[in-house]
């Protein structure tokens, strides 16, 4: 099967993000950027399917600024065959991302689109399900295990009341969760090899999709500061402090 994995360039998860003083957003200048960790898990899973022979072509795509090429090169180094950059310097909302991916899916004809369950910058968690609705393809969300079975997939999902095992026919959309795998480290030889792999550049504006944001971001602020903490000298003192909060230790599960 052919797999398409969309990847997003985000602020690295180890960076302590800072809100700009003027409230215009989060500081992204001079900050280490990386592939969204959940997308990395999606790429890893697709590479494993490629290595196992269930996938015969793995295409990665990123929608974003020119620098997103770095993210695509990382995905190529991890084992993708081909990369596509859909370039846009503006903020593209998930609905517009899903519309761009729908157009790309029509062109690339993948059997499976594997996505991270969410990006760790805007935490929207929308692109996968939106793409499923636009393409009218079935979706399995929050995959902890994916098994290819003929023209179908069997997926273990992280659901609200435990794990659920579902089957869905291809073509399909699957969003991946943390438990699915542990992505490999990129080796230097594979980074060098990745430079030879094809990377196609397209302009988002050429897709005939309305890219104008529907939501206005009025302000971005730091979270409310936590009240000044207190050192306690012993377990007894700690217990007394906790018991001063009415009902805190009742321990009734909701």
């Amino acid at each position: 099967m052919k797999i398409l994995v969309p990847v997003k360039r985000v602020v690295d998860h180890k960076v302590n993000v800072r809100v700009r003083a003027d409230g215009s957003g989060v500081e992204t200048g001079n900050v280490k950027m990386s592939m969204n960790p959940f997308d990395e898990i999606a790429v890893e899973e697709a590479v494993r399917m490629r290595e196992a022979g269930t996938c015969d072509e793995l295409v990665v795509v990123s929608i974003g600024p020119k620098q997103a090429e770095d993210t695509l090169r990382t995905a190529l180094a991890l084992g993708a065959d081909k990369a596509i950059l859909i370039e846009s310097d503006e903020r593209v909302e998930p609905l517009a991302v899903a519309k761009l991916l729908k157009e790309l899916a029509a062109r690339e004809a993948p059997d499976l689109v594997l996505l991270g369950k969410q990006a760790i910058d805007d935490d929207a968690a929308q692109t996968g399900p939106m793409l499923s609705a636009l393409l009218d393809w079935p979706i399995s969300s929050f995959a902890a295990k994916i098994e290819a079975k003929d023209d179908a997939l069997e997926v273990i999902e992280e659901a609200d009341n435990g794990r659920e095992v579902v089957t869905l026919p291809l073509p399909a959309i699957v969003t991946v969760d943390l438990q699915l795998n542990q992505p490999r480290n990129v080796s230097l030889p594979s980074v060098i090899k990745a430079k030879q792999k094809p990377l196609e550049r397209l302009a988002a504006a050429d897709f005939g999709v309305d890219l104008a944001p529907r939501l206005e971001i009025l302000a971005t602020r730091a979270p409310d500061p936590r009240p000044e903490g207190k050192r306690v000298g012993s377990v007894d003192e700690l217990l007394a402090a906790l018991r001063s909060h009415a009902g805190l230790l009742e321990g009734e599960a909701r």
Partner: protein
Amino acid sequence: MSVLVLGHHNGSALSPATASVVAAARKIGADIDVLLVGHNLTSIASEAAQLAGARKVLLAESADLAEARATDISDIMFAIADPYSTFLSAANALGKSAMPRLAAKLDVQQITEITAILGPDTFERPIYAGNAIETVKTGQIRNVITVRTTSFEAAAKGGEAVIEHLSPLPSTGAVKLLRTERDESDRPKLDEARIVVSGGVSLGSAAEFERLVYPLADKLSAAVGASRAAVDEGFVPNECQVGQTGKVVAPELYIACGISGAIQHVAGMRGAKVIVAINSDPEAPIVKLADYALVADLFEAVPELTEKL
């Protein structure tokens, strides 16, 4: 403005999340209807009908729908969407799967996981796992919104909503449930628990994690969490991970045992109402962050706390 709320339940009882979503709905509009999808919903429906502020409880009820997937639920919501201008759900796994599908079908840009309602069209939501808060204003006539339920007090009881059966019901779609692997432990779920006890890499081994963290959690009827480092060391399964790449929790009480407080962990728990840190290192970031920090030997302090509770 009429509001359609997706009701959450586990097949036998209404999820408390639903009451919080109804409370959020009351801040956005009037005429709030709650949709329940499943089978044998009678008692769940009467629970939902008591939620203050609910006008109607709509039942999509059939044997097939006992195993309804998020795809089926979003299709049902789309089929009855006409009279509504706002669609709300908890931002749990079901809400996160179903609501963006509904939004795309309605050509609406969804607003994910709001934590405050500043006006009918203006909301606050956390980004970067809560390290920043964004104020968003929608210019859309219709809106699809998911709600962080821990940010809203549950709607009170005392309502008298009318219960209505929907028909005809759409057939279920291409995704089929094969089996469920229910969590059989009595422990509450990490992202719903009132109290979370978490362990870090300083515990040293899976055996020590088991010996120190679980008894304290059991005594408090708490969920068990862990730092990424502790998960990477194999002390506990990945599903226990609290942090930016794990679960984001906002319990009443969070007790961090031997957790240093790396950025990515703090991102997942800084929304807790009361944070306790038990750590031997007075310089650990979590000691600064905590409401109550006990700098002590973990291996003595944690069992002592468990004992004295």
